[in-house]
């Protein structure tokens, strides 16, 4: 067994430090002394403020103790602690023969082996995201809620009620018009967004509780290093596929400012949220080649922008380490509680934004500002080869990206879009400005200047990509 040399001297230093401390610090003197010896800046600050003379006398004791060792004192102390912990566990713990490599461990290795793990990632994405969230959530559930509840019941009731109770045309428009609070705000929030987000959070909670995410992180670490991140960033990125706003909040779990900034950029630009994904997947329904073009462009932008920002932003390359917990079968009760609390957070956060958006759009229409905004946006919309009506969808996109995508959905249903236009519109909208809520969270986490610069970049970039994509698709006459 390894033995810490000269530990008695460390004990002596600890005693000397402890005897110099006169004030109480809410923990034992020895604990304070140990922290000071390990060079803990926080406790040094506290002691320095309470009794500066003592700290002055303690500093040379720490330096003297360090001088005895080649290795840093925190390491020496950790080794000693480990030694003691091992001694105790040896005394009280007996271990049977090493267990055979069980099923969970074998499955874990299949997940971590790139040959089997990468197909498995694709399978999980296909089943979890495309089939469950896209097919079941955005398809079956949305149809059910929207058609059965809103189109048949809520909307006609509201319209009739407004007709009877509100004598003013403008007030009726606010509640039950094309962009009314109930007919647009509540309908989008409850009938379209809620089922999609709820199914995503169920899928995410299952994946999270099974212990799969760290395995995905170790698989993807090398790729993420190329874009200035580590495998650890896979958690906010996957969460971003559910809700970019929540994911932007989660970037604070990343260890360096640089990683946080890069992932905020990627979340704002290249990670479409589940609400948007659901609408985009149904927009691209019936255009299989278009779906692949869209996936290719989004993936390309993700890597290109990540690689560029990791070159441009200063800071050291991060290092990756992560615990791989044992695989476990998720408990339904835990999955439901997690999903419930996330959906609640999401709903409380976005519902007011939806209502606000309806009111702003209504006010904009009443004052004519909205028409001017649409007229202004028509130019970039024309550059990327879309019909003028799409400008409305992009203006909605300022409020929520999925709001915009849902607006496109209505235009598609009216049969006004060609296959090429759908692909270009989906790509541009997916890259387009994050929703108001994500912008507000970005301001809070990264500061106003960064958030504004980021939004300006995203605005220009998304239309540039849309412009290029349209030109390329026209030039090659891709049959979409």
């Amino acid at each position, binding site marked *: *067994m*390894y*033995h810490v*040399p*000269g530990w*008695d*001297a460390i004990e002596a230093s600890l005693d000397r430090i402890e005897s110099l401390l006169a004030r109480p610090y809410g923990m034992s003197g020895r604990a304070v002394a140990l922290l000071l010896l390990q060079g803990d800046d926080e406790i040094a600050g506290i002691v320095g403020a309470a009794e500066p003379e003592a700290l002055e006398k303690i500093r040379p004791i720490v330096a003297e103790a360090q001088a*005895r*060792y*080649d*290795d*840093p004192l*925190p*390491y*020496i102390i*950790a*080794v000693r602690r*480990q*030694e003691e912990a*091992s001694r105790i566990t040896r005394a009280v713990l007996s271990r049977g023969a090493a267990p055979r490599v069980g099923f969970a461990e074998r499955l874990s*290795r299949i997940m*971590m*082996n*790139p040959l089997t793990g990468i197909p498995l990632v694709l399978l999980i994405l296909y089943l979890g995201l495309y089939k469950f969230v896209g097919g079941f959530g955005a398809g079956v559930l949305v149809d059910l809620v929207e058609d059965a509840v809103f189109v048949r019941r809520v909307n006609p009731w509201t319209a009739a009620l407004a007709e009877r109770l509100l004598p003013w045309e403008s007030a009726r428009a606010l509640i039950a018009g094309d962009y009314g609070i109930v007919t647009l705000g509540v309908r989008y929030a409850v009938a379209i967004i809620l089922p999609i987000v709820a199914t995503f959070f169920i899928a995410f909670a299952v994946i999270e509780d099974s212990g799969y995410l*760290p395995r995905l*992180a*170790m*698989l*993807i*670490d*090398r790729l993420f*290093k190329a874009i200035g991140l*580590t*495998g650890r960033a896979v958690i906010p990125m996957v969460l971003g596929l559910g809700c970019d706003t929540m994911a932007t909040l989660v970037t604070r779990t990343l260890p360096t400012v640089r990683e946080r900034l890069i992932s905020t950029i990627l979340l704002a630009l290249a990670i479409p949220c589940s609400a948007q994904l659901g609408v985009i997947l149904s927009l691209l329904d019936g255009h299989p080649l278009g779906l692949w073009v869209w996936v290719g462009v989004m993936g390309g932008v993700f890597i290109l922008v990540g690689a560029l920002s990791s070159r441009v932003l200063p800071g050291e390359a991060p*290092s*990756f*380490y*992560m*615990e*791989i*917990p*044992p695989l476990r079968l998720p408990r339904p009760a835990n999955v439901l509680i997690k999903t419930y609390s996330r959906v609640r957070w999401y709903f409380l956060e976005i519902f007011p934004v939806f209502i606000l958006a309806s009111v702003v759009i209504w006010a904009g229409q009443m004052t004519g500002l909205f028409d001017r905004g649409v007229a202004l946006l028509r130019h970039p919309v024309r550059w990327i080869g879309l019909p003028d009506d799409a400008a409305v969808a992009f203006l909605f996109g300022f409020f929520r990206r999925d709001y915009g995508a849902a607006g496109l959905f209505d235009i598609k249903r009216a049969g006004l879009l060609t296959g090429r236009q759908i692909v270009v519109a989906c790509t541009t909208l997916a890259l387009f400005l994050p929703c108001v809520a994500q912008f507000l969270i970005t301001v809070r986490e990264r500061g106003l200047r960064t958030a504004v610069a980021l939004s300006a970049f995203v605005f220009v970039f998304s239309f540039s990509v849309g412009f290029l994509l349209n030109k390329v698709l026209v030039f090659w006459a891709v049959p979409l």
Partner: protein
Amino acid sequence: MKISERAEEILETLWVRSEEKAEQVGLGVARGNPEVEELVKAGLATVRGDRIALTERGRAEGEKVTRRHRLAERFLSDLLHVKERLVHPVGCRFEHLLVEGIEDNICALLGHPRTCPHGRPIPEGECCRRFREGAGKGVMALAAMEAGQGGRVAYIQTRDRSRLQKIMAMGVLPGMPITLIQTFPSYVFQVGQSQFAVDERLAEGIIVRTAAR
């Protein structure tokens, strides 16, 4: 050439003060001391005015003497369990018995330790260099091991503080049993009851004494 034990002691003190601590060494009370004369005559030291300095050969010899002394201390404390306060005085006598050749055997027996029981570095011998380069096998970085290979953590390369903290946070500390599970695309290992994934940079900092296969 052989010099007396007293002269060796002085040579060691001189080496520690001038090389390790980078001090200027004054002669002081040692002026006219026969052992100092002996060192000068052997071409190991020069006296100029009040200052005494090592020659190039003196530096090499001093390093060897220090190495023998600290190895002797390690030997006494690790293998013979001599009480800590006795390690230094007994070590002073014992070191003179470690002639070249035996010294490397003791070093190998102790597993090429890097520090003496007081935590001061042991100058590297030829045997340590060969050992580190892998001729001795047995001790290597986690990044150089093969999947399925196991052993105990020997030490951690501690140059980079932030990396050291991350490695320590995983509970990877000297003496812990460790098994490498996978090497690509990341290094996955089991330490104690937990599994971790790390990148190559961190895996290079974990040095393992591998078990015989």
